[in-house]
Each structure stands twice: as structure tokens, then as C-alpha cells.
């Protein structure tokens, strides 16, 4: 057992999380686990179906009864996978006989219906314990997680039923009417064709759910061992010691070698390592407890293969009971005429109340949306125009009287930044003041340009586009504009700004 190669994160988990880890293992190795579980089961099912041609459900029951066997191969495979050892593909076939023969009789009799089946299976399959050592080991393992094992068993059983019924309904839905095998007879019980389909559906559901169920139990078992044998601590200690060795180059092989040997026994750890003293009596007590539990568990089988009948019987029974009850309620709890009248009045006033609330809402809505209703525009107050945009003062009063002249003066005074800045902010300012364009201080230059374009005067938007382009080049790229470009902008400024506002 080489813990350094462990394929999942070793830490002490809660039982639920251990089950979830089991589901993760099942889904990441799903195909191989499914194959080794499903193949032998299918190989047995086919001849059995041939034998029980007229009553295929018996073939189903037998294969289902042998489920503990089908779970052994996936378990064995997973015990290799978690240490990233790949067992040879055909090697596992050779293992089949010895795996299936381990302690087989009890697993087919009373242990078949143990709620801890998946949780306990590793003790038999991997640790190969029997009789008293096994029950001692189980006593230790069962210190925790038996409730989770029960939950796992129940939920997986429900999933099997759901999957089987889902497959059944889907199949019926997709079988074309011309090929309809007639699943139900006139009494609404399954015909032979129906039993065939249902048996196959249930078998498929069983082998599909099996890897998950078995892995969840295995993960519970592993979690107990991690807890009891402190695998997580061992892994960290080893990496720490490795680090120290590399750092200090003190290689003490004399300790390491016997240690490796002592730990290299795969899943063969002696129960005494973790188990504390248990006398025979307590073990016997435990066994009897388990047996009691299994007796209780026999109910499960009965329910499973009578499921369809059970539903039918109850279909008739429950409504009648309910109808009786409701009739009784109506007979005994119906109010007399006076109360009935009160009820009627209450309902009337309630209705009035609801209508009044509704009308109030309607009035409010009309009030609220009176603007849009008057005019399909917006009734919102325009936001106050910003005073400063891009760090430029755009208040009209901050501008000089003759903007183009001032701009050219600044340009000739070799202050191109100030010159262009003045032109840009003057343009913005005019657009805000005269044309009531709704710039916000959060807008970028190109958003402003888009707004001007949306305003709809083509020459103005072209002018503004040119100006924005030059301004941005200067402001962010420190790229001087051509003199004639600037001149042209200045010359047409007054004309462009004089456009009539819409």
C-alpha cells in the first residue's frame, strides 16, 4: 500500500462527503467499473432469460439476488485504481473465480439484505476476513458512518427505481404505435411483453447505478480507515521527512527500508493495528445485532417485486379514503346558513377590496406614466448639464467672446494643447447650451461623438467627429494636428455652431 500514490485527497471527511467522494470516483472511472460489473451480470442474464422465456422476471430476480457478486469486481478494480495501479486487463478475469468464492454463502443469504452491504464488502473482498476476525473488524469500522451507509443504500435503491421507471416510460413513449407490443392488458396489469420490457429496464438501471452505490460504500470504508489509521498524517509526515532529507541530505536508508516493507502489504493490515481489545462476547452481541437488522431488511425484497401491484392496489384505496374523509369534513364542518351567508358576504367584500386595490394601482400607473402616454417620448427631467468634462471647463461663461480667434492666437503662441482644448470645450459648451445635448460627465469622447451623431445634423456630426479625432490624438497621443486642419475647423466653427436647434 503506497500511500503516496493515492488518487484522492486523504483527509478525514464527514460521512456525506465520503459518499460524495465515492460518487466522484465512480464518475471518473465509470466505464471500466461499469464494464467489469455489468459484463458478468449480462453473461448470466442471457441464458437465464432463455430458460425463463415465459416468466423473464424470475431471471431478473436471480441476477438481482446475486448483486453482491457483481459488485465485487468493480470494488477490486477500484482498490487498484485508487493507488493508480492498473491491473492487467485480462488479469482481472483470472481473479474472478477467487473473488466470487470469498465467503460467498453468507453474502447470498443474510448479508444480502444488510443495509451496510457496500460499506462492509471491502472487508471480505479486499481484506479477506471471515467469521470472527471479520466481525471484530466490522465492529471497529461501524463506529461511524452506518447511518450514511443506510442512506446510500436507500437513495441508490430509489435511483434504481427512478431510472427503471424513466427508461420504461421513455421506451413506451418512443415505440411507434404500429409496433406497440401491448404492455398493459385490459386489467391494466403488465402483459408478458410488458414484463420483458420492465425486467430489461430494471436490469439496465441496476447495472448503471451499481458503480455509484458500490463506490460510495467503498469511500465510506476508506474514510473510516483514513480516520483510524491516520493516512493523511502519514502522507504529510512522509513528505516532510522527504523535504528534510533533501534539504539536509541526511539519507537514513536503514529506517526507510524496513518501514516500506512493513507498509507494503496491500490491504492486508492486521486488524489489531486499529482494533482495540474486544472480547468474544461483545463480538457475538454485535453479530446478533446485525442479524436483527437483516431480518428487518427482508421487507425490501417483497416491496421491490410487488411494486407494480402495490401501486395498483393503492390507486383504488387511497382516493376512497380521502373522499370519505372530505365528505365527512363537509358534512360535519359545513357552516349553517347564517355562517354561510357571512362567508358569502366576506367573499363579496374581499372581491371589492381586491378590485379597489387594482383600481388604485391602475390610477397610480396612469399617474406615473402620464408623460409617456401624452407623448411617446420621455417625461424624465433632463439631468443638469455637467460643468466640467474631461477636466475641461464647459460652462458658457468661462469662454472668451471670440473663440476661433483666441484659438489661433494660442496656436501661434505655441500652446497647441491649450488651443485645441479651448476649441473642444467651446464646442461642447455650445452643444450643451444651444442644442441641449445631454452629455454626462461620465461620457467618453466617442460617446459624445455618438450622441452628436444621433442628434441628426450631418455636417455638425462630421465636424464634431473631426474635432474629436484631432483632440484625442493631441491629448492622449501627443500628436500635433496639421495647421490647415485646425484652421479649417476654426473657420467653420461659427457656421456649425449656428445651426438651428431642432
Amino acid at each position, binding site marked *: 500500500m503506497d500511500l503516496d500514490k493515492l488518487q484522492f485527497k486523504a483527509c478525514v471527511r464527514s460521512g456525506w462527503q465520503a459518499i460524495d467522494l465515492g460518487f466522484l470516483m465512480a464518475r471518473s472511472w465509470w466505464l471500466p467499473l461499469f464494464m467489469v460489473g455489468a459484463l458478468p451480470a449480462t453473461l448470466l442474464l442471457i441464458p437465464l432469460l432463455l430458460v425463463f422465456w415465459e416468466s423473464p422476471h424470475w431471471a431478473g430476480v436471480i441476477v438481482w439476488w446475486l448483486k453482491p457478486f457483481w459488485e465485487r469486481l468493480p470494488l477490486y478494480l477500484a482498490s487498484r485504481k485508487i493507488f493508480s495501479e492498473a491491473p492487467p486487463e485480462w488479469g482481472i478475469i483470472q481473479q474472478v473465480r477467487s473473488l466470487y468464492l470469498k465467503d460467498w454463502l453468507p453474502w447470498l443469504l443474510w448479508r444480502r439484505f444488510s443495509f451496510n452491504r457496500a460499506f462492509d464488502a471491502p472487508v471480505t473482498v479486499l481484506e479477506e476476513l471471515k467469521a470472527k476476525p471479520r466481525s471484530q473488524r466490522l465492529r471497529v469500522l461501524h463506529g461511524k458512518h452506518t447511518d450514511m451507509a443506510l442512506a446510500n443504500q436507500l437513495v441508490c435503491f430509489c435511483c434504481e427505481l427512478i431510472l427503471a421507471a424513466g427508461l420504461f416510460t421513455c421506451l413506451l413513449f418512443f415505440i411507434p404505435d404500429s409496433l406497440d407490443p401491448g404492455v398493459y392488458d385490459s386489467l391494466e396489469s403488465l402483459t408478458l411483453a410488458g414484463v420483458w420490457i420492465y425486467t430489461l429496464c430494471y436490469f439496465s438501471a441496476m447495472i448503471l447505478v451499481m458503480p455509484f452505490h458500490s463506490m460510495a460504500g467503498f469511500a465510506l470504508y476508506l474514510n473510516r480507515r483514513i480516520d483510524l489509521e491516520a493516512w493523511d498524517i502519514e502522507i504529510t509526515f512522509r513528505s516532510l521527512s522527504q523535504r528534510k532529507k533533501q534539504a539536509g541530505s541526511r539519507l537514513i536508508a536503514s529506517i526507510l527500508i524496513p518501514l516500506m516493507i512493513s507498509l507494503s502489504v496491500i490491504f492486508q493490515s492486521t486488524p489489531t493495528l486499529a482494533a482495540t481489545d474486544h472480547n468474544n462476547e461483545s463480538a457475538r452481541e454485535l453479530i446478533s445485532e446485525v442479524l436483527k437488522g437483516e431480518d428487518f431488511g427482508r421487507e425490501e425484497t417483497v416491496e421491490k417485486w410487488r411494486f407494480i401491484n402495490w401501486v395498483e392496489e393503492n390507486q383504488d384505496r387511497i382516493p376512497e379514503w380521502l373522499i370519505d374523509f372530505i365528505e365527512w369534513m363537509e358534512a360535519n364542518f359545513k357552516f349553517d346558513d347564517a355562517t354561510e351567508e357571512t*362567508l*358569502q358576504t366576506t*367573499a363579496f367584500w*374581499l372581491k371589492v377590496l381586491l378590485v379597489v386595490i387594482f383600481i388604485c394601482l391602475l390610477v397610480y400607473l396612469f399617474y406615473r406614466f402620464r408623460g409617456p402616454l401624452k407623448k411617446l*417620448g*420621455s417625461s424624465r427631467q433632463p439631468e443638469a448639464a455637467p460643468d466640467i468634462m474631461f477636466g475641461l471647463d464647459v460652462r458658457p461663461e468661462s469662454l472668451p467672446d471670440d473663440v476661433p480667434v483666441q484659438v489661433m492666437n494660442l496656436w501661434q503662441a505655441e500652446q497647441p494643447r491649450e488651443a485645441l482644448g479651448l476649441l473642444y470645450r467651446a464646442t461642447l459648451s455650445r452643444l450643451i447650451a444651444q442644442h441641449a445635448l445631454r452629455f454626462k460627465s461620465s461620457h467618453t469622447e466617442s460617446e459624445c461623438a455618438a450622441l452628436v451623431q444621433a442628434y441628426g445634423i450631418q455636417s455638425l456630426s462630421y465636424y464634431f467627429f473631426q474635432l474629436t479625432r484631432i483632440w484625442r490624438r493631441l491629448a492622449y497621443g501627443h500628436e500635433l494636428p496639421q495647421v490647415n486642419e485646425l484652421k479649417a475647423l476654426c473657420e467653420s466653427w461659427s457656421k456649425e455652431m449656428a445651426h438651428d436647434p431642432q
Partner: protein
Amino acid sequence: MKQQSFEQQHQQTWEEIERLLDKPNSVENSSRCAEHYMHLCQHLALSKQRLYDAALIERLNKLVMRLYREIYRYRSESRFNLYTLFAREFPLSLYRHRYFVVVALLVFALPGLISGLWIFFDETAIYSVLDFTDVRQIEKMYDPAASKFGRERESETDIMMFGFYIQNNISVAFRCFAAGLLLGIGSLLVLLFNGLHIGSVAGHLTRLDYVDTFYPFVVTHGAFELTAIVFSGAAGLKLGYAILNPGPYSRLNALRLAGREAIPMLYGIVLMLVIAAFIEAFWSSSASLPISVKYTVGGICWFLVLLYCFSGKRFGPR
């Protein structure tokens, strides 16, 4: 720095944050929670780097997580504004998804129209769409000779029907949306069948000349109900389309975005269907109102609903 002096130096800050977290609603009222958060992260990073005790790191880690959760906690008052939702976001999201709405409308209305016309001209065609018993029941409901339309229904029945319409119609709309996850096919089917059903019933009743009982009954709440079903189909189609054509995103992220964007539509659909249920239960069923009034009110409702649904364009070109 030694761990002990580090702890001493910052103990006060940590205790202050703990006090803040222990008092309900105090984090959102505190102006310093962002500052606290940054400090805490810094302390945690430092103590990790300096290999301080696991216990200290654990404590700081827990504190950071609690503060983080508190900062990002869902707050109904700040993120859920009913007014902007219905006045702005719902119409806007209809406008943004106008192509889906158009497709949903076509899938709903065209089969309805065709089957309606077909059934109007062909006496037996109704039975290829509906059951015999269903047809009889519908005929009985709208039969002008029947007593039902002659007298006022009791208030109790009105309220029961209100409950029924809420339960049934909104559930249908929700399922129509959810079915969109099946690559949009589910929503298309729901729209198609609903369209077919409504069209056939209308065609059949028109052929029987039950016009004065059927149309005044459906016209008013139809304004809300039919549009809401189309919208829920559109929202479902959006989900399906996100899976089929995720654009620059992964399919999963596209689906997530679509789900998030469909939410305002869902709220709007619920509102419309509640209004529809209300009108259907208390207004449409009323027998004492003259037909002309019903048609007028119905017309006004259609006008207002369409006006409202088309109002999304104002809120921004997207």
C-alpha cells in the same frame, strides 16, 4: 516580526471586525468595511508567508470569509427595485430580445390562425385537434342559450377561479420557459400546442356563432395572457438559443448569461399573468356588463399592453 507582536499590533482591528460581524446589519452601515477587508487580507497573506501558527491563520481565514459573505450578501432593498423593474427593465429586455419575441409570436399565432380558419370552414376538423368531450364542454360553456351568462356569478366562485387561474396559468408560463432548456424545442412545442388549442376553440365557436359570448369574455384578459405566454416562450427560446449558438462564450457561460438576462422577463410575465387572472376572474366573467363596454375596455387594454411592451426602445439602443 514575531507572531506575538503581530497579534498584539492587530488584535484591536480584528476584535472590531468581529464586533461588527456579530451585530446584525452593521456591516452594510459601516463605511469602513472595505478598508477592514483589505487589511484583513493583508494580515492573512502576511501570516501565511511568515508561517505563523495554523490556529492564527485559521482565525483570520474565518474572519475574511465571514466579512466577504457579509459584503456580498443579497440585499432585497438595494438590488430589487420594483419600480425600475417594471417601468424599465422588463420593456427593455423585451426590446433586446425582440427577435425571440417575434419567433415565439409566429410559432404561437400562425398555427392558431391556420387551425382557426380551417376549423371555421370545416365542420369536422375540430375533432382532429380536440377530444369530443372537450368540445362539448367548451360548447356548453359559451352557449348563449345556457343560463350561465344570464346571471351574475357568486363572489366565492370568482375568488376560486382567481386562484385557479393564478395556479394554472403561471405554472404553464414557467414550464414553457423551463422547457426552453431542451434546445428551445420544449418552448416551441408549448407555444405551438397552446396556439393550436386557442385557435381551434376560437374557430369552432365562431363557426357556431357564439361570438357574443366568447369574444367579450376573452378580449380583456387575453391582452395580458396571450402576450405573457408569448413572452415566456421567448424567454425559453433565449435559453435554447444560448446553448445552440453560444457566440464567443462557452455553452455553459452562454446559458448562464441567458438565464440571468431572462430574469426581468420572468418578473414581467408573472405580473402580467396576475393581472390577467384578476381580470379573467372578476371582469371577464361578469354577465351584467354590456358587450360594448367589454370590447371598449378590452381594446384599451390591448392598446396599453402593446404600448407598454414597445416602450423598451426608449431605454437604450442595444
